[in-house]
């Protein structure tokens, strides 16, 4: 059998070389697609706005319009287990926050919301709440208010940081003696230059964070675990009992 001409091999080698050398992604180029009809979602996907020609639901303009981040329909109410209403907490209602984003609303909230509706059932539960509260606090609060809650996070950095306004210091008598409503209102509506963080933390998560802030204060001021302040209980059984009786008294 005679082998094909040398040029035949040369042609194969060259075409293979050229085929292989194209299509590497990097920089502005996203690379080539392989079987695009399996790669693209026909349904709308969050944070995706690459229109694909096999999408038969809508024109490209309509698709782009729908793929944008959108506000919920007017009147949409988030569902959650607990609620913060002027009357206190109740289970299985919609947490419509009843206080306006005004100075008057803030004062009302500070008067009305005096206790944390997210109650720890026992010491283990409290530990879990505080652990989760700490995680959330570190992510969403600590860069301004400081890991220690002293109002000196890395963004403020004793006045040298990039942020131009001093964050609140939780370790002051003023904030130690403030009701929980002051904290909750600030998270929902913001205060001063701080804006609302309602989209970052769910209802329960806000209360976990407040639990954690209270535990930081309790550590600094060496407060007992009872009296609504949540220092992580020491192993001594008496303290836990004291706390449980306090919670029961609160319920009454």
């Amino acid at each position: 059998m005679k082998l094909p001409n040398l040029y035949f091999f040369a042609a194969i080698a060259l075409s293979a070389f050229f085929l292989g050398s194209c299509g590497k992604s990097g920089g502005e180029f996203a690379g080539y697609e392989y079987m695009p009809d399996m790669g693209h979602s026909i349904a709308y996907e969050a944070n995706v706005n690459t229109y694909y020609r096999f999408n038969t639901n809508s024109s490209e303009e309509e698709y782009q319009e729908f793929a944008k981040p959108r506000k919920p329909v007017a009147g949409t109410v988030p569902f959650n287990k607990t609620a913060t209403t002027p009357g206190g907490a109740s289970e299985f209602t919609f947490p419509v926050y009843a206080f306006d984003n005004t100075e008057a609303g803030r004062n009302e909230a500070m008067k009305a919301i005096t206790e944390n509706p997210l109650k720890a059932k026992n010491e283990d539960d409290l530990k879990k709440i505080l652990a989760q509260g700490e995680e959330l606090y570190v992510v969403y609060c600590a860069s301004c208010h400081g890991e220690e809650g002293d109002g000196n996070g890395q963004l403020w950095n004793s006045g040298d940081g990039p942020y131009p306004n001093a964050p609140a210091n939780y370790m002051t008598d003023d904030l130690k003696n403030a009701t929980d409503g002051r904290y909750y209102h600030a998270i929902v509506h913001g205060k001063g230059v701080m804006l609302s963080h309602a989209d970052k933390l769910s209802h329960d998560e806000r209360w976990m964070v407040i639990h954690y802030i209270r535990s930081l204060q309790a550590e600094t001021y060496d407060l007992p675990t009872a009296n609504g302040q949540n220092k992580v209980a020491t192993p001594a059984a008496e303290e836990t009992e004291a706390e449980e009786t306090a919670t029961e008294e609160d319920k009454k």
Partner: protein
Amino acid sequence: MIYQNLVRYFSLAFLFLALSLGAQAQDAKHGKELFLANCASCHNANMKDNATGPALGDVEARWAEFPQEELYAWIRNSQGLIADNSAASQAYAADLYKKWGSVMTPFPALTDADILDMLVYIQNKYEFGCDSPPCVTAVAEGGNEGPAKEDNSNTGIILIILAVVLALSTVFLARYINNLNRLAAQKTGGEPVANKSFLQIVLNPTIVRLLIFALVIFGGYTTVNNAINLGRQQNYAPEQPIKFSHALHAGKNGIDCQYCHDGARRSKHAVIPAMNTCMNCHTAVKKGPEHGTAEILKIYASTGFNPISMETAEYGAYFSDTVSLESRLAVYEKWLKASNEGMAEGDIKTQLAAVPQFIQTSEESKLVNTKPVSWIRIHNLPDHVYFNHSQHVTAGKVECQDCHGAVEEMAVVKQHAPLSMGWCVNCHRQTKVKFDENAYYQADYYKQYEEYHKEIQEGGVTVEEIGGLECQKCHY
């Protein structure tokens, strides 16, 4: 003699200067402490921009027409001064309260000396940009450079030199053998062999065959490799509509990844944050260290924020949709001019030119709507793969950097991992599940496991409990 006197005078003068500067620095330092503790929550610490309260630079000049005690009284208890009918500045104070609309916290404990110190600090900071002159510019930190690149260039050069030397010696040897052959042929009286040219040697069929063989192997290898990479976007690093730098925000400023990507812990998507997240800081931070106002202006345009709402009170803090593009541009131009002193007109125009992209005008109603920023998504998984962020972040406790690389060092984000199936599978093979102290696995996971184990050992398990009543076990 003269010199001695001169030296004496100079040293005296120097001593005096140093003492007075030192005393002033002391005052300003005390003033700084007081300012940061009491005032900075509402008044901008650069003394130039408004915040909840007005910028404090030149405050004494503004109050110069009134007795000094009244400024002090105003600082101690602003509402008291407004109520005081004998005060010369009562009307001015009432106007200020009306304009700003929030009550300043009273500070009755401040002494006159305290307030004086604070005023010294405020004016120093406003005029010179530091606590007390002479200002010493901080030496830029040099430790911020990335990890040193691996130095491969040396070995590369050595390899090239070696290759050249070998090629040359091959050519020389070939020539030498050729000449020897020719001499041998001459001596034995045979027919002299023709001197081969270089081209003839290179185009020798054996060499050409070898070359083509190598090309086929190499071409096949790259083709297969690149075919595997089809549809993958490793190293994809597009320029975004706003030059947001992760190196600055997550790296230098140390903001947690999840502060902005708040979906990562609780949903399938890590979430490209909506603009209200930017505004959480940029309501107050109005100038960046790299692009100044240029990129922050885009945030304001896309959210409809009015950065100078005190000067242009008719619009409020956010523009309503009836405010036209022209009026918005006018406000932004005024802001840019005020915050970029001495910037060329052309540069301001360039910055303003970006605004219309972040705004949309409805043709029917003529209303102006803010427009979400069209960020370019970098990490794309095909639709036939399901990936959930919360499962990896909350349950798996995987660090963001494990998949996304050192994003906190990237000014422009680049896709670090190939996001290929092999890459996923490899990680799933090697990663140990973090059961301990993990709320998702309830911490007592091992206890539960032991209980099941005991139950099986003791023989209390029915066929149903190991799936014996699944329909398909019998009816397949």
